[in-house]
């Protein structure tokens, strides 16, 4: 009998990664490192700082969607689902880096009017994707998985905006 084409890899339960992610986020939230699962998710101060920096990067993406929408309302309607995904990504990143705080979202800068707005937004998204991907390799465990996934998601958005 032929094996099924994997929707997730052999030996990898989606529940397993979800649990690992939850354990990692719990460690970040509480600082508790007593269990073995928590042990593997210990975060260095440098990693915590870098994760906080990626929160700011994602805040800039969210701001860029707002600015682009104001500059080009037609584009705003077209990319509403992408903007919503950027918001979801920011929420997950903030949850993973509870020490991060931002009293005011970073300004993405003024978006140019149409027809340049789309290219400007695409640059903002691609820049953030590259930043998350670079930061991902210096993290580990659930944090690396989360950053890598968000980087890939934004790269996909970049392609969609092309």
């Amino acid at each position, binding site marked *: 009998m032929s094996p099924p*084409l994997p*929707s997730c*890899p052999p030996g*990898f339960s989606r529940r397993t990664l979800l649990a690992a992610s939850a354990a990692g986020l719990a460690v970040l939230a509480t600082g508790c490192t007593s269990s073995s699962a928590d042990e593997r998710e210990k975060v260095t101060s440098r990693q915590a700082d870098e994760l906080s920096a990626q929160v700011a990067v994602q805040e800039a993406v969210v701001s860029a969607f707002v600015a682009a929408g104001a500059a080009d309302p037609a584009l705003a309607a077209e990319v509403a689902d992408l903007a919503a995904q950027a918001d979801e*990504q920011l929420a997950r990143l903030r949850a993973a880096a509870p020490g991060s705080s931002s009293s005011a979202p970073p300004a993405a800068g003024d978006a140019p009017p149409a027809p340049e707005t789309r290219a400007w937004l695409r640059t903002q998204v691609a820049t953030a994707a590259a930043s998350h991907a670079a930061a991902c390799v210096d993290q580990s465990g659930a944090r690396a998985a989360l950053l*890598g996934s968000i980087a890939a*998601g934004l790269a996909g958005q970049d392609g969609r905006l092309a």
Partner: protein
Amino acid sequence: MADDTSDTGALDARTENAALRSALAAEHAAVWGYGVVGAALDASAQGLAAVSETAHRDTRDRVVDLLAERGADPVHTAGGYAVPFPVLSGTDAAALAVVLEDGVAAAWVRVLDQAVERTTRELAVGALTAAEVRAVGWRATAGQTPATRAFPGLPQQ
């Protein structure tokens, strides 16, 4: 289903190699699956399937080499795989390509979760990103909306 995490719960070479083996299995499946995808597409879309298959062959070969350098057993391709639904049209083929890329993406997220080597994470995030970029195109071809995903490869919350 067993977790690959070591007995101490720590990440180590064993967890990383186990995740790489799973990624290799997903790449094998993708290479095979794109044969089905390409056969169901019209000529105008077969180029994208061919490029996608080549990308997966390249990644597969990199993982095989990496595991060999470490003295770890590779995972061999199966003779065939069960296709999850009938592939009778170009739309079906695109939907199958999405399944293939999503499976690969999940495998590479797993590598990111389990890796200890920075170079392995570089390989993983590159493969994950490439899979999602291809998946976006295939989702659009298959008429799936939205075509993008906020968290490719991660479990849905």
